[in-house]
């Protein structure tokens, strides 16, 4: 964990998603990696522009679903075969057809919960503090009508003055320095 002090990054504000995506794509092409886009609504193109082709949510969902299904099927088997075997109309205690429905429901439940909470966790949420909220224009615009590109100080290419001039070439509304 790097020391949380000094400059977090440079934040450029754009008026339209198109401007943001063009700037983000160019920056990614120029070798920037520690960067992120912030938009008021999902802009898939922005994610693609900075190299987010895939994420781990599907894998987490799959694992959650499999674990949920296995857990419920195991529970039913344990109850019916070992813990409390009952003779129900002469059927075998291990009557798997009857176990399918709850196991199926639990697969869906746990896949859904895993998808939701996995997505939140991968996004780094819940977060009590994020340096970007130090920028007043970000606080006002990021959830309403402005589109932001942040080049972060952790990137080896980062230099306060050069990077500021570099972002200025994309004709943003403003470029502000954000501190931790």
């Amino acid at each position, binding site marked *: 964990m790097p020391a949380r002090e000094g400059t977090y990054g440079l934040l450029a504000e754009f008026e339209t998603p198109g401007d943001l995506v063009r700037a983000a794509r160019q920056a990614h092409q120029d070798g920037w990696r520690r960067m992120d886009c912030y938009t008021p609504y999902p802009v898939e193109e922005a994610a*693609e*522009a900075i190299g987010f082709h895939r994420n781990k949510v*599907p894998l987490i969902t*799959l694992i959650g679903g499999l674990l949920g299904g296995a857990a419920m099927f195991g529970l039913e088997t344990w109850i019916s075969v070992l813990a409390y075997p009952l003779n129900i109309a002469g059927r075998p205690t291990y009557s798997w*057809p009857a176990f399918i429905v709850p196991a199926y429901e639990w697969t869906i439940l746990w896949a859904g919960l895993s998808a939701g909470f996995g997505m939140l966790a991968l996004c780094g949420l819940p977060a009590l503090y994020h340096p970007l909220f130090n920028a007043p224009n970000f606080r006002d615009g990021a959830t309403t009508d402005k589109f932001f590109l942040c080049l972060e100080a952790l990137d080896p290419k980062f230099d306060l003055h050069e990077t500021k001039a570099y972002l200025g070439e994309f004709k943003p509304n403003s470029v502000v320095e954000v501190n931790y």
Partner: protein
Amino acid sequence: MANDSHASSHAKTLPAELGAPAFVDGWRNRALMTGVVFSVIALILAFLGQSQDHLGWDHFLRAWTLGTVITWGFAVGGLTLLMVQYCSGGKWGLLLRRPLEAMSRTLPLVFVYWVVIAIFMKRLYLWANYTSVSATAAGLKAGLITEIEAHCLNFKRPMLNPFAFLWVGLLCFAIWGLYAWRLNALALQRDAQGPETTPYWIKKFENVSGLGIVIYSATMTAAAIYWVMSIDVTWFSTVYGLLFLVEQGFQVLALGIIVALSLAKAEPFKTILRQTEQHDLGKLTFAFVMLNIYLNFGQFLIIWSGNLPNEINWYLDRIRGGWGVIITLDFLFHWLVPFTMLLSRDLKRNKRRLILVCQIMIFAVALNQFWLIEPSFKDAARNLHLSWGILEYIAVPVAMTAFWIAYFCTRLKTRPLVQVNDPHLKEILEPEHAHA
């Protein structure tokens, strides 16, 4: 992106020539040759089977029923998915409408297939042989039928008799034909008019299709009961029509995807097929894969739980005596393989692999029908055995489906492949994520 002025400048333009590409003729010729070869094989197998166990021609007709059900699923299922699409909307419809229309216009061939069943119904259906109470009593006395069968034959005679079979069949074909003709004719009229008429046509198609879907559900249930379920007079299931309905959606989507993706090798589909809509079709297919296992397992679970002698035997006929192998394979190809493969986002966006999954799905539909039809006959119930006749289940449906595909290709060539009077056309020509 709607608010971006750069998107429109990158929009593709529709090619001037909208007809089916030339290689569709190649498909048709290959299908015709396959049909001829397998017809010859089917005839040879029938003679071999006849000399082996005197069931050669019986098996030929049973396999014919299978072939009829499959091609019927494509033709009438195609008509229904077309109607569903007109009601639901969505850009994926632009890819499928013309192939689905072509499927619906193959109905005459399916009718010919059905006529053969109608002519030879005595070889297929017990109820066609015992058409009166006295005939049933005589059959029971001679030990040709069981007491349960005799009871069911008498009880169900108002519905299961040759007269009703013929008239219900004719009525169903008339209704499907009417809808196929109407929707196909309206679609050409729609394209001949300008964009100012689009709202009118959208409403018009919705109104025709909405009622059509309801009527179709009833008629296809009747057909499924008469043609397949009634082979075993003793058994019934209230979800039977729905099973066939979902199965038709399953097989039509699979074929529709194969056709659309194969057509994309050339114009005009090369221009209008985007990954977004391909992905959407994959997701819709996934839903049908799930719905299908849901209903099939639901029926099994209820009958298994009830464990009643007049119901459970239907399943025992289809599980014991080697049939367990078939139902296991059916489960694998019908659900497990398509389900696990279609879960993957990458696979749904990969043309070659998506086509492979769809081919497996169509094979599974045939396997499932084999499992439904053959054990209904006494010589095969709880007794899966290899004979020359069993091989008819490969030869006859392959030949019939091949001829159907040839007919389908001919139909596909008769009109432009893209419906132009549609608001989605502009959207589908826009680039997907590449240009923001």
